[in-house]
């Protein structure tokens, strides 16, 4: 017995150590590859603009080399149809079942807020690109959420300040009657008042109204220099078409909250001619890598990308680079690499990720929609009138209401 025991104990210990090390080594080897996901509107109201963000992300991964931390980068995507409830459900599925490390995009402010909460619960990253709410970089900010390329404050302030200086100081606004519209109105009004302008009146319009003629009549009655249309998509088209009908555009300039090249192509440039809007980027940009990106995109889609596509490409690229710098995909390490980081890419030259509120800031482009006779190249619907620096168009980071907590 003694002989058996003397042999047994060391053998047991050695085999335990061996099996433990095999387990540790194999679990280290099975350290999962970086898994990237895009959650966007692919069949809802904004699909015409955002569905291609999936391709933008794929392109960014491919251009990065397709590999990170020694393994292939994995990619999945989901459609939330611009519905907050569905976004919440998909975000949970992505973080829990698909075990993604990061979610990109999520247009629709309520949806983005929901996903942001999921990111905090699961302690994984979320980059809000498509939604405009200032709350994700404001009162509802958290350490795991980043806001990329734009928010409502930047949209309103950039073209607001510029329009007050260049188009006139007497404004009338027609606002889509829900959270996004109200938020934009607040920021536009603020921008106008800093320049000493006057808001002559505002009409709140139920989302989905087809006939804006009563509001156009209201606006014309006030004789403004600028009519600001705080709506998008179908409502934007209807209000603009009807403003033309009543002859409003003869005396008043129109400023939009959001307008994309796809929207102009869909209904024809004569509808939006001489209207103004802000963009975070335009495909004629000379930023590093911009031309190549546009060329690649054109080959695939036969049209240039819109600035949401460029923002997605930039955001995915910067995330992958941050993981590389951190040499780990651990969210905390990556977040530390992102906060305070300055970069130059096709979207922003330069771009800066503010540590106080996780907002990625860059210049804003004031765009004028060209008249049909001015369009010399297919899809060249905008003229860049001015470029505004980030400091002027983003809220002071100490005033956003964001209390960036710990991990």
């Amino acid at each position: 017995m003694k002989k058996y025991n003397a042999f047994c104990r060391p053998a047991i210990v050695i085999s335990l150590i061996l099996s433990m090390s095999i387990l540790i080594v194999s679990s280290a080897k099975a350290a999962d590859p970086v898994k990237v996901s895009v959650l966007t509107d692919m069949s809802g109201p904004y699909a015409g603009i955002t569905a291609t963000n999936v391709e933008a992300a794929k392109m960014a991964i491919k251009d990065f080399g397709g590999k990170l931390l020694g393994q292939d980068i994995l990619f999945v995507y989901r459609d939330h149809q611009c519905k907050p409830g569905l976004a919440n459900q998909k975000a949970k599925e992505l973080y829990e079942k698909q075990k993604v490390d990061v979610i990109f995009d999520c247009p629709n402010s309520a949806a983005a807020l929901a996903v942001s909460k999921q990111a905090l619960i699961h302690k994984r990253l979320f980059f809000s690109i498509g939604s405009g709410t200032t709350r994700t970089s404001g009162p509802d900010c958290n350490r795991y959420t980043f806001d990329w390329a734009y928010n409502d404050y930047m949209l309103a302030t950039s073209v607001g300040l510029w329009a007050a200086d260049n188009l006139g100081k007497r404004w009338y606004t027609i606002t889509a009657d829900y959270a996004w519209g109200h938020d934009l109105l607040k920021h536009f009004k603020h921008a106008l008042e800093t320049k000493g302008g006057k808001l002559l009146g505002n009409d709140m319009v139920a989302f989905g109204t087809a006939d804006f003629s009563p509001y156009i009549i209201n606006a014309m009655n006030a004789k403004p220099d600028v009519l600001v249309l705080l709506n998008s998509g179908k409502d934007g088209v209807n209000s603009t078409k009807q403003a033309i009908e009543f002859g409003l555009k003869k005396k008043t300039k129109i400023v939009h909250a959001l307008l994309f090249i796809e929207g102009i192509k869909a209904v024809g440039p004569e509808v939006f001619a001489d209207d103004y809007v802000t963009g975070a980027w335009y495909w004629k940009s000379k930023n590093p890598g911009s031309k190549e990106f546009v060329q690649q995109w054109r080959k695939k889609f036969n049209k240039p990308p819109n600035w949401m596509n460029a923002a997605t490409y930039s955001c995915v690229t910067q995330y992958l680079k941050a993981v590389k710098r951190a040499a780990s995909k651990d969210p905390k390490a990556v977040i530390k690499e992102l906060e305070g980081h300055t970069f130059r890419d096709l979207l922003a030259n330069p771009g800066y990720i503010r540590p106080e509120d996780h907002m990625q800031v860059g210049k804003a482009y004031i765009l004028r929609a060209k008249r049909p006779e001015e369009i010399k190249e297919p899809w060249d619907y905008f003229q860049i009138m001015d470029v505004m620096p980030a400091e002027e168009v983003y809220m002071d980071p100490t005033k956003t209401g964001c209390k960036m907590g710990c991990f």
Partner: protein
Amino acid sequence: MTSQFVIMQLFNGLILGSIYVLLSLGLSIIFGMLGIINFAHGAFYMLGAYVAYTLTAYVCPNFWFAFIFAPIIMAGFGAACEVFLLRRLYRLPPLYIMLFTFGLMMIIQDIIRMIFGSMGVPFGTPKSLMGAVNLGFMCYPKYRLFLIIITALSSLGVWLFLSRTRLGSIIRAGTDNSSMVDALGINISRIFTLVFGIGIGLAGLAGVLAAPIQNVSPLMGMDFLIDCFVVVVIGGMGSIAGSIIGGVIVGEIIASGIMIWPPIAHMLIYLFMAAFLLIRPRGLFGREAFHD
């Protein structure tokens, strides 16, 4: 708020009313004669606009060509729907037809979205109707005046057809008592097809007329659908006069609401409808027989 401003808004309410009138005429006729609540009516309206776009873009770039043929094509399509799809559901309880038309609405909208995209297609005002006319109290777009006139003519036409022609009287008889009409040897199912076709044709006409002043997109019918039911309830199911007067009333209520306080505009029409349902459920001109 000057009196000139009030007159402007009230006059413009007629336009809002016109689209409602055309759509509600079709809806009302279909319900009145066939007992079908057509949830797909908004989708047919949208389809009319897309047919007009397709005609002007690919067949003949003339608005008047589309103006004449789009409603005719839609009427034919409506008749085909009735013959091949709806007819099979008559013997079932009304809920089944409602569900079917609801499903049809979703199918039509999604097919259009898949073919044409969700952002819409261009459609401009015809050159002969561009510009505005000085009415004294305001400069009003020519095209909208044209819209009001066409609506008035169509309503008159439908009323004359139903009240003064033999076919019209057969249709009216079929509403009251379809089995009796059948027993008298008249092919009632052909009458049903005709009525459904006319109703959808009117929806198509509304779509063509709306195309220059609205965003022609897959969901354009959704904005009107609920309001059309309000019009039909206020005016009375199955009544031509009811649809016309109901449509104008609803248009004017919205215009007035916007003058007072815009968020209230749409709520007012629902309050109005609720009041009607409580006080006089059959609407202004509806017949009591409907409420069984």
